[in-house]
């Protein structure tokens, strides 16, 4: 009824159409209904998947999030044996301490971790990427800067040994 102008417009152009639609025309076409149903399905399944996949947990700092993928079980176990167990969780060492860097790295790692875990074929034992190694190095220094300041290179980007080269057990004991 509200669309009265439309059938009139159509009738001027096509008699066949006007006959079919002259009396009453639904507000949405069949296609729109199919689309709405499918969109609803997607929304429902998507929400369920997000919940089932513990999607919200990835926004937290909880170490249990990392063992959502069983690949990380050994890493969590060895962290629990380590000296840093009481003072630092996964994110404290593996994500930068500034908010932007933290979330960028989280998104970057999150994407590639889920890609690797879903598609498979990653190396095992897994190996840290150079970018993430730089992150751990920066987080070591961030917490220990008062103590290690005299040891740091005089100029930025100067060569220095990675902390975990010698202190391999602080984050993951017995690995």
């Amino acid at each position: 009824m509200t669309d009265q102008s439309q059938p009139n417009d159509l009738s001027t152009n096509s008699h066949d159409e006007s006959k079919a639609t002259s009396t009453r025309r639904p507000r949405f076409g069949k296609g729109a209904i199919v689309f709405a149903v499918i969109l609803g399905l997607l929304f429902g399944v998507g929400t369920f998947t997000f919940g089932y996949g513990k999607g919200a947990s990835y926004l937290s700092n909880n170490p249990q999030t990392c063992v959502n993928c069983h690949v990380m079980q050994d890493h969590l176990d060895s962290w629990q044996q380590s000296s840093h167990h009481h003072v630092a969780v996964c994110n404290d060492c593996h994500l930068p301490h500034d908010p932007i860097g933290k979330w960028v790295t989280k998104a970057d790692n999150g994407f590639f971790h889920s890609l690797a875990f879903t598609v498979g074929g990653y190396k095992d034992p897994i190996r840290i990427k150079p970018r993430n190694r730089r992150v751990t190095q920066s987080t070591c220094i961030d917490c220990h800067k008062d103590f290690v300041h005299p040891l740091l290179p005089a100029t930025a980007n100067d060569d220095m040994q990675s902390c975990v080269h010698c202190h391999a057990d602080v984050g993951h004991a017995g690995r």
Partner: protein
Amino acid sequence: MASDQKSGFSWLLLLTFITGAATFAVVALLVNIFERKQEARAPFTKVVEVSEVSSDPEPWGLNFPQQYEDYLKTVNDPYTDFGGNHALPPSKLEESPWLKRLFAGYAFSIDYREARGHAHMLADQEVTKRVTDVQQSGACMHCHASIIPTYRRIGLETMGEEATVDKLAEDFRMDAVLAGFKEVSQKKYEEVHAEVEKTPDGMDPESGDPHIGGAHPVSCVDCHDPKTMQIRVTRPGFVLGIDKLAKSDEPVPHLPSVEQWRKDGRQGDYDPNTMATRQEMRSFVCGQCHVEYYCANKMTLTFPWSNGLKMEQLEAEWDTTTFPDGDDFYDYVHKETGTKVYKAQHPEFELWSQGIHARSGVSCSDCHMPYEKVGATKVSSHWVRSPMMNINKACQTCHKIPEEEIKARVDTIQDRTKALIERAAAAMTEMLDAIIAVQKAGASEEQLAPIRKLQRKAMWRLDYIASENSKGFHARQEAARILGESIDYSRQAIAACWKLELDDGSAEETAAVEE
């Protein structure tokens, strides 16, 4: 306007299609997450009974499909720079002609090929010319066949007990296994092979009917207890050998349970199955066969470990061993020179014992059967093969350096060892020529006696490293030391020949011609 509606409809169709695809992707992800979560539950289903008589690996494979699949893959070991798989593996005798002279008068001079994977071991033994053209002893099957049920059956029979399938399946019975081992040790190869084929290789648990399926290469029951799946040692040769080693005073810091047993006052016998740590067992199961031993018909199969595990300690045991008929011990008479010499088998366990990996508590299985994740389950790979085929899992668990770097380090060790082997081989062949020359020139047995001794030492040392499977990797300095000694003894023998100053001086001539 009709076209407007049509295009509106196509847009709708496209949107529907895109949303559909997105839904498809989300469902696929959902199922993937579900599967990954299921993986983490590590299910194990026992579908058939296996017992002490199940030398056929197939029923075990029904319970442990992953391990069985891996085991079957050992027929597909890829070829490394120093060993691996082929339908007919390349002949070592063609690659290194000096081996023919080293083994002159011994079956290895007829047919000697690169090693292949475990699942091949019995078939390869059945067709090698060493077995088909030469009469071999049944002791060879100690390691190549799944022979323990046969030992037990014959052992029970000699002990006057009835050897029914039920009885064979029931219990390991080390006493019966030992008795059977001693009984067949000096029999002919064909006789023992026939005995193995007569022994049931499985049993129907309902009816208790035996299943006679022929002989199998070393399989599940040889390393695992069918009741608990615990790894164990079954080979009488090893059980007797490791007991001798424990009773010696040689320090074995890489075998802590042996040291402990000594400290506890050496009560009774050292029994690896009850005393060894799990980590030690992960090497002992390999050490049952990958060792030096005497395996022929003059005496029972022997591991020469009563002085320790070093090359010269094994040699010292052979030096003091006499055969039951009173003759001095030897493996073969070298055909070109007439000297009685020793044949080193494949002393991987002994050489590993001298290396840094053993000293650091790394077992054979850690590198040759590394853990891998199958789903979320941690499985020790039963595809026993060169760690160089699997550097990520075999090495990088401990060595956090790039794969290429690891490969380069191993290549360096193996290439250097290979070069030293070639040097030692050249010295050895020159020594043989020198000895042949002085024999022609009429050297007396008395004059030759000290030279023969040097020859035996030189050949034993060269063979020890050349026939060991790691090309020096298991203990690189030890390998180099042994080869250095070999070269020294060869050259000493040549010098001794020249010092004899026999009339015609043909020793020098022949040596010169050979060069």
